[in-house]
């Protein structure tokens, strides 16, 4: 795949505690030279990113309850409403991982339904189950819960997790084409991208997309 073909499978962005407005501007200035699918920022930079993205076809992605998912449903919904007000096109929301680890899928399910309801089709809900800390049973049960709640996009990892091709294969094998599988977490090389796409990933998330593309054919 050449750089353009790769970029058309990649979602990028800049997230993190120490990111300044200048960091967002300069990261975006280079990112906009490629046809990336989407651009993610923390909520504090959502308005700024909306302005910047006007001149591109990239979707604006808002990070919700990011990165730990430890925010209450009320706060998650407040953040989704904010994302809607800024006209973001998709959210990346970390799930209530403590509920999953406690086997409390009822809570996971009711949170998801409420989120989908507030999103109301105006914004794509992509959730992060942080596969790295889940058992195989938890991964499958979580995906099942997502589908029942009407969420059909799953972003494998966030914040320090390393995306495993086996996870992508697992979800593809069990759920077929039901999900958009968005591989994320520690993806730094073209070899990783290729392996994850081969495993069935729909999109690749990486903040270092530009470094990555430099290693590809022009």
């Amino acid at each position, binding site marked *: 795949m050449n750089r353009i073909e790769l970029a058309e499978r990649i979602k990028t962005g800049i997230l*993190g505690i120490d990111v300044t407005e200048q960091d967002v501007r300069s990261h975006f200035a280079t990112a906009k030279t490629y046809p990336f699918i989407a651009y993610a920022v923390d*909520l504090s930079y959502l308005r700024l990113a909306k302005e910047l993205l006007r001149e591109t076809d990239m979707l604006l992605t808002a990070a919700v309850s990011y990165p730990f998912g*430890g925010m*209450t449903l009320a706060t998650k919904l407040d953040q989704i409403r904010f994302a809607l007000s800024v006209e973001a096109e998709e959210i990346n929301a970390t799930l209530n991982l403590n509920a999953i680890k406690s086997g409390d899928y009822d809570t996971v399910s009711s949170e998801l339904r409420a989120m989908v309801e507030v999103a109301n089709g105006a914004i794509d809900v992509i959730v992060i189950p942080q596969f790295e800390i889940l058992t195989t049973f938890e991964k499958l049960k979580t995906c099942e819960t997502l589908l029942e709640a009407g969420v059909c996009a799953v972003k494998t990892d966030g914040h320090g997790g390393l995306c495993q091709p086996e996870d992508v294969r697992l979800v593809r094998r069990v759920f077929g084409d039901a999900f958009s599988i968005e591989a994320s977490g520690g993806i730094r090389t073209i070899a990783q991208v290729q392996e994850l796409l081969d495993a069935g990933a729909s999109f690749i998330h990486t903040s270092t997309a530009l470094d990555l593309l430099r290693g590809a054919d022009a």
Partner: protein
Amino acid sequence: MTDSRRVVHLKQIDHTELRTLATYDDIRRLCFEAVHCGFGAVALHPIHCERAAEHLRGSGVGIVAVVGFSTGAFSIEGKAFEARDAIERGATEIDFVINVGALRGGRHQLVLEEMRALREAAQGHTVKAILETNVLTDEEKRLACELAIDTGLDYVETSAGFASGGATVEDVRLMKEIAGDAVKVKASGGIRDAQTALAMIEVGASRLGTTAGVQIAQTLASMSNDLDREETK
């Protein structure tokens, strides 16, 4: 040797559980340990506030909710909403991560406005501003402490504990130097033993955020027994 009488009071410890893989049982255990050891508070994500409030009813142990955790990169209104919501669910204190990117980017007015909004949202409950000192210059640390004093916050706090590194003795000393008696200092992140806990108190920390509270309490108890034995000799 009266030095070890410069003690860590167990009430100064915020018994902390912020891991994503913590289960409801872990939260129950955390609360039980806090009551049993006599810690001042538990510190946890807002999703656990109601559960902790149930476990801790009548115990006098406080509930610290972390807000804007851990990036601090949320809107001011969003963080204020989260703080009010946490208090409604039983939180007695708010530890919020400041907008670190705004501070580093020189947008000091925004940092100040955010502190004011959180002060107001907390409705008189204790508010601690987490600065994430590891990614700040000394000048930025100084400025953040001054803004916290201007706002009348209760504490400045070193770290969320998830970015690289946690509290250092040098940072706590620096923060105390600026803070004086106007605002207290909480050291958090990387405090895993009694020696480190004592070192933080020694340079001026009033509160400690740690996941190792139980071990620290045990070490302190045995140190204090040794001292008693020395004195009876």
